[in-house]
């Protein structure tokens, strides 16, 4: 009997040896005369179990992980293909693994379940349902559905997506664009990558819906060059979607057009800032633009442009398929829907955790994360990427909600949660924040370009105990200048992690 076996193909699974495991599995099965159908699925997002092999059984899919090449023969001996539970790597039914079972997966409902490039798999799991609905609605009704959902930009700025779409919708032009910001540069974030590598049609569908809503016929996915696998998968998915009539000149026979192309970035963090991204797409240096004009009015090539993060666009198919209200029913306060959290850094069980807004950091880091990888006490956590604050234990009971975090000078950003144990030197982390800004500043405004260089120097003097008190005061003033005087979030938010170290971990600056 043919048994279906799944070995994921996303970057993390591959980084942990999934390709070698898949090869060994095929070879061992051949040698033993066992018939298997191997599917290279996406990842379930349970990174600490990668490579996570699954075997289809009558009871459901059984999980095994993390599987090393050397484990394959042993697993087959133990009855892998019968779905044995009698092996140290057996994790039981995949969907009963608490880490997965306790999540609220709306956007990431399909990852790891399907073959990422199979349109049949996508259709079998609610795929293109949102696009089919959108094709029956007038453009304003699509925008209204997104407004009802309460969706706010998942890239970090949390601007209401529906309002942005309305502006582009209402601005007349001979050409409009949908641009997907897939320049996921924040350390500790990989949700965009998972969406693109494991469920690319979801992003394609979200962008096509956006195009229908605002009257744009051309979309670009601006993808960071550090994601070559996502690039290959997206290119292939776009081609297949065109052939199946979900993209191109006549979407599903509606007579409406939407073309899509992937464009690669080139290793510049600043190009995650939307105006810098647009400059880069136009073939220029990624220098930040002054706002106004807003990109929604004068964006790519001077035309009205929706610039949305991968996760914002990836939320759209669900919202159109199930209604904006179904999405808005999740969440708290003004933070509606679900948030894709990424547990990273020094964490025992790292991976993707999609939950409604409102969970506390502590629940996330302890119940899901299981504490630190090194099993030492947790000391600090940086939520939201390199431009967001380091949080001490006294702040771990805050609910994850945009307004609550903003209230204490912290941010949720793109949902990255980077954990550090008690060996971390917070002074070095503060120094790195300034150093990173120095490396990545576009150079257009002085507070960011010069301030970051001076910031590294001042911190070095503090660490060398030269006029420490005076230099601490200077650092505080420098942070204020950068915050108030910078053109964009790069220089304007680099002070957040630095100031959080000064406020919450002052002893590390006194050694």
């Amino acid at each position: 009997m043919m048994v279906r076996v799944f070995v994921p193909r996303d970057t993390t699974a591959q980084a942990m040896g999934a390709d070698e495991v898949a090869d060994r599995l095929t070879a061992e099965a051949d040698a033993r005369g066992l018939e298997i159908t191997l599917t290279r699925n996406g990842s379930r997002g349970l990174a600490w179990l990668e490579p996570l092999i699954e075997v289809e059984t009558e009871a459901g899919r059984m999980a095994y992980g993390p599987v090393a090449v050397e484990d394959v023969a042993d697993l087959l001996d133990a009855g892998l293909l019968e779905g044995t539970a009698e092996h140290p790597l057996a994790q039981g039914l995949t969907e009963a693994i608490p880490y997965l079972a306790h999540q609220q997966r709306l956007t990431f409902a399909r990852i790891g379940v399907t073959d990422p490039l199979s349109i049949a798999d996508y259709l079998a799991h609610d795929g293109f349902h949102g696009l089919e609905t959108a094709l029956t609605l007038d453009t304003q009704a699509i925008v209204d559905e997104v407004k009802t959902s309460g969706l706010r930009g998942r890239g970090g700025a949390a601007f209401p997506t529906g309002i942005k779409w309305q502006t582009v919708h209402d601005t007349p032009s001979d050409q409009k664009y949908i641009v997907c910001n897939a320049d996921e540069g924040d350390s500790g974030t990989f949700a965009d990558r998972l969406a693109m590598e494991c469920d690319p049609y979801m992003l394609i569908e979200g962008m096509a819906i956006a195009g229908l809503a605002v009257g744009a016929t051309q979309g670009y996915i601006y993808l960071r060059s550090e994601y070559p696998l996502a690039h290959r998968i997206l290119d292939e998915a776009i081609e297949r979607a065109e052939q199946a009539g979900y993209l191109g000149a006549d979407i599903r026979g509606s007579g409406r057009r939407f073309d899509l192309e992937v464009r690669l970035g080139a290793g510049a963090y600043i190009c995650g800032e939307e105006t810098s991204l647009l400059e880069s797409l136009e073939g220029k240096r990624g220098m930040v633009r002054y706002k106004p004009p807003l990109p929604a009015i004068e964006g790519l090539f001077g035309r009205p442009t929706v610039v949305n993060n991968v996760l914002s666009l990836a939320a759209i198919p669900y919202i159109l398929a199930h209604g904006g209200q179904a999405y808005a029913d999740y969440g708290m306060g003004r933070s509606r829907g679900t948030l894709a959290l990424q547990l990273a850094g020094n964490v025992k069980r790292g991976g993707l955790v999609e939950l409604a807004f409102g969970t506390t950091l502590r629940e996330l880091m302890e119940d899901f994360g299981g504490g630190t990888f090194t099993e030492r006490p947790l000391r600090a956590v940086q939520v939201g990427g390199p431009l967001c604050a380091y949080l001490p234990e006294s702040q771990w009971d805050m609910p994850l909600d945009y307004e609550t975090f903003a209230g204490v000078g912290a941010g949720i950003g793109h949902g990255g949660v980077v954990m550090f144990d008690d060996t971390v030197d917070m002074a070095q982390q503060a120094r790195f924040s300034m150093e990173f800004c120095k490396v990545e500043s576009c150079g257009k405004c002085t507070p960011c370009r010069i301030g970051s260089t001076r910031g590294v120097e001042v911190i070095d003097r503090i660490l060398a105990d030269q006029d420490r008190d005076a230099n601490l005061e200077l650092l505080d003033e420098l942070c204020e200048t950068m915050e108030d005087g910078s053109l964009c979030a790069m220089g304007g938010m680099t002070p957040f992690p630095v100031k959080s170290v000064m406020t919450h971990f002052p002893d590390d600056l006194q050694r």
Partner: protein
Amino acid sequence: MSAPAEWTPPLIQDEVDALKDKPGALLPILHAIQDRVGFIPDAAVPIIAESLGLTRAEVHGVISFYHHFRTARPGSHVVRICRAEACQAVGARALEAHAKASLEVDYHQTTRDQEITLEAVYCLGNCACGPSVCVDDRVHGRVTPETFDRLVDDLRTAPLEVK
């Protein structure tokens, strides 16, 4: 990874001509050239500038803005170490110190045997399984100094493909 081609002005011109009519063609052109020959030769700049109606300064400005583009031939393999926070939290600082010491190079330099170019990268999106290292196009997770040495040894001892 296929071996990079030796560049010639006609080869550069072909890459430019294939893409120059796209809107915002410069980055796609630079990627195509670097993918083909491993770097962007100085002599490519006037060819690109002429074809796109830009000044040489504008083309040079774009090349120098982006970390990804390089203007010198790299070693046979490019090894990139993630320096970002999630990897720092699990030992990336020690790993980068080890890598520089054992290869006897700093970032953006190539080993004396021309085998390995060491680069820094800020996040490979493998943040739950760091420290992360990317060898050519392949990411490796949970890299320790010992596994780093093995990766490098494998690169140096890999048999040459006979064509």
